[in-house]
């Protein structure tokens, strides 16, 4: 083995601790049912991979792995998951009969072939790390990227432009109607005044000694019921309660006969009337 390339005990241990866990997490990616769990498995694999890279003297790759994959890509995954809903699960209905088993079979076959191929490999001692990292790992990498692969870098730039354009094409919606702001809403309401729309909030339903519900109209200062105080739906359905009946019932309980006041002035309580003899004023409409 070339001097300087022995794998230290610590690194060996790191590998044998991390690698099985990574394999487990990767399998978890396939078999867990919840998308969030799968994403967390993926995060674990990616971070472990970053540690491996650093251990193998590729610190730049390790940092990029954390920053780009774990930091950016995984966060996007999680955002998407949140948009879709954490509890959303895939439909497992097969549209093609036996599709799953065919898939599993082919996948297994592929795995067997690849395992066979890779297992056959006999690795010689690694060489070239020294010279590759002679000017520190990031610098050496930069030289490759901007030397041999400068055009590839530019092509990747084109790829990014394409990705941005494509995302805009598929998601960006131009504002086609005028935007609704507080001002436009206010102006519209003022314009609608002539159509009988009120600028202020509508009065609340009435509150009576025995009754406090949506279907009872409030009384205006003159003692007349205000129809707008009852929600429109109830009015249309005819579920509005009669104020007269309400007041009559109250009067019956209190024990005063209001029948004599039935012809009383609808405009409100006369100033000189004794409050004890007529506790409430029946505001009747003719």
């Amino acid at each position, binding site marked *: 083995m070339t001097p300087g390339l022995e794998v230290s005990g610590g690194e060996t241990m790191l590998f044998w601790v991390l690698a099985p866990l990574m394999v487990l997490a990767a399998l978890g990616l396939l078999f867990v049912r919840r998308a969030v769990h799968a994403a967390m498995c993926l995060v674990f694999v990616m971070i472990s991979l970053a540690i491996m890279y650093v251990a193998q003297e590729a610190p730049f790759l390790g940092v990029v792995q954390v920053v780009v994959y774990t930091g950016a890509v995984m966060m996007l995954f999680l955002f998407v998951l949140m948009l879709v809903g954490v509890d959303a699960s895939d439909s497992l209905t097969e549209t093609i009969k036996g599709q799953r088993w065919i898939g599993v079979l082919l996948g297994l076959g592929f795995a067997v072939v690849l395992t066979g191929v890779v297992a056959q490999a006999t690795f*010689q001692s690694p060489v070239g790390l020294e010279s590759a990292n002679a000017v520190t790992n990031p610098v050496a990498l930069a030289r490759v990227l901007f030397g041999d692969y400068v055009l590839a870098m530019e*092509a990747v730039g084109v790829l990014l432009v394409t990705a941005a354009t494509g995302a805009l094409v598929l998601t960006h919606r131009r504002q086609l109607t005028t935007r609704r702001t507080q001002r436009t809403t206010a102006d519209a309401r003022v314009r609608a005044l002539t159509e009988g729309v009120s600028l202020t909030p509508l009065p609340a339903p009435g509150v009576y000694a025995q009754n406090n519900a949506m279907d009872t109209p409030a009384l205006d200062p003159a003692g007349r019921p205000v129809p707008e105080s009852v929600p429109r739906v109830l009015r249309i359905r005819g579920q509005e309660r009669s104020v007269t009946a309400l007041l009559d019932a109250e009067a019956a309980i209190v024990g005063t006969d209001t029948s004599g006041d039935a012809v009383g002035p609808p405009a409100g309580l006369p100033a000189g009337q004794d409050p004890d003899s007529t506790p409430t004023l029946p505001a009747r409409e003719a």
Partner: protein
Amino acid sequence: MIPDFTAPLIDWAALAPLLVVLGAGVVGVLVEAFVPDAVRRATQITLALAALAATVVLIVLRWGLIVGSDGAPGVSDVLVGGTVMVTPFALALQGTIVVLAFLGALVVADRTSSGQDAFAPTAAAVPGTSYEDLARRAGLQQTEVYPLLMFATGGMMLFVATDDLLMMFVALEVLSLPLYVLCATARRRRLLSQEAAAKYFLLGAFASALFIFGVALIYGFAGTVRLIGDEDKPGVIRRVLSGDAPLDGMTVLVVAGILLVLVGLLFKLGAVPFHAWTPDVYAGAPTPITGFMAACTKVAAVGALVKVLYTLVVGLPPEVGEQLRTVVIVVAILTMALGTVVGAVQTDIKRLLAYSSIAHAGFLLVAVAGINLESLRAVLFYMVAYGVATVGAFGVVTLVRERTVVPGRADGADGEDGVVLGEATHLSQWAGLGRRAPWLTAAFALFLLSMAGIPLTAGFVAKFGAFGAAVAGDLWWLAVVGVLASVVAVFFYVRVIVLMMFTPPAEEQLLAGAEARAQEAATGTGDEAEAAEASSGAEPAGGGVATETRTEVARTVVTVVGSRGPAAVAIAVCAVATLVLGVFPGPVLELAGEAIKFVP
């Protein structure tokens, strides 16, 4: 101490064709941002077509330099330290791609006499929402289509002209990504279009993943991702030949790697068993894009396939080469068989053309399986012949449309009434097209005949060359299989031609049926007459047949909309090219012969 960084020597002039196309794409994106709506579409079209035309000129200028003349060899084909390698073969493929892209862009730019192009006003609108209607009424246009087309074309040009597998991967993505987006922008049947894009994207991502996995295995074997390389940085071939690949002798690793890379390439080519996306995507994508995609992607994919396969087969042990060849042969046979057999039962014209393109991938692979210089020439010519026929055929499909008929205006043969809808893609709607639009039908028939490989069309020469290449590679039996598959394929092409030329259109069949019933009613006994009237639900027999079809409330008829120019030009050029290449293939074959002179 390691010497300081030396900037790579870049021959900008040699890269010019590529840079012009990609640069036009980038400028197009800026145009999107800064040019006002009113002139944006015109600007984009002008820019795209001008860039493509300029690229053709640049490639022609480069051609003389790189091929060289007698005695004087061409200039070096290795650029940018070997990541770009514009061999005469690659340059010929680039030229083919750009010319086909130009024709395809003409079809894309055509709005037809209905005043609408094939793209949604805004692809971001959810299908069936009020926002979609609003966007249509506001007259929005999705002009990002043109920069995306440029990017795809640039990616394809890079794809066929590189010696580096990583570069090839980047180029694969550069060419695929715009196509995924373009597939989702159809104006009509938008859900199908979006489904097509999603399918293409997912399957394409898988294929790309397999491709890069294969590259990793090859790297593991050879310690390099270059195919040929040079003295300083030897590629796979040099390392294998000199015996200093890190895992020398473990050819099984490199075979697995090459096979996985081939999966990625065969996917783009649409070869069985990686063809499943083709019919759905071809049918769902906007038709001009389908034409562009079918023609240009195929050229790029087969170019890269030939590059990888032919380079590596030379260097690897003969038995490995034989194994790879077997794979190509099996895929070729499967592809031809499935393409022709399944294509024969299609009822949708776009799906039919999709299966036809699968079958053609098979014929191309027959030529590729020959593995000799003859194959390269055959592939080049085949791509030109197939490409012009495909762009032309899909161009015709964009013009055959449905139109609603306003009740009371009868069969719509005379009226300008009704709204022009989407394309009439069902085969039965193409019946009797020959009477409505004889020239268009003639052109379409010509393209189909060329695809079928009938003599005096380009397709015949192309197929002859392809099967000849297989024979030259001692695969005469594969050539026989190819010929048999062609015979089956002729059936479904001719079926469409017969339908267009000799079958009366559906409306006339309806009329004819009614006429027959009416005559029967007039001449038959009273009972029969009543029965006939009841069955046809028509007015009394004496009322005439012209009113017969008015009983339906609303329906659609097939109509041929006029081109506003570009598409007509493209179709005409394609038709002429198909004929000329069929009758006088000599010059192009000669050019193709020059292109393969210096292939390693």
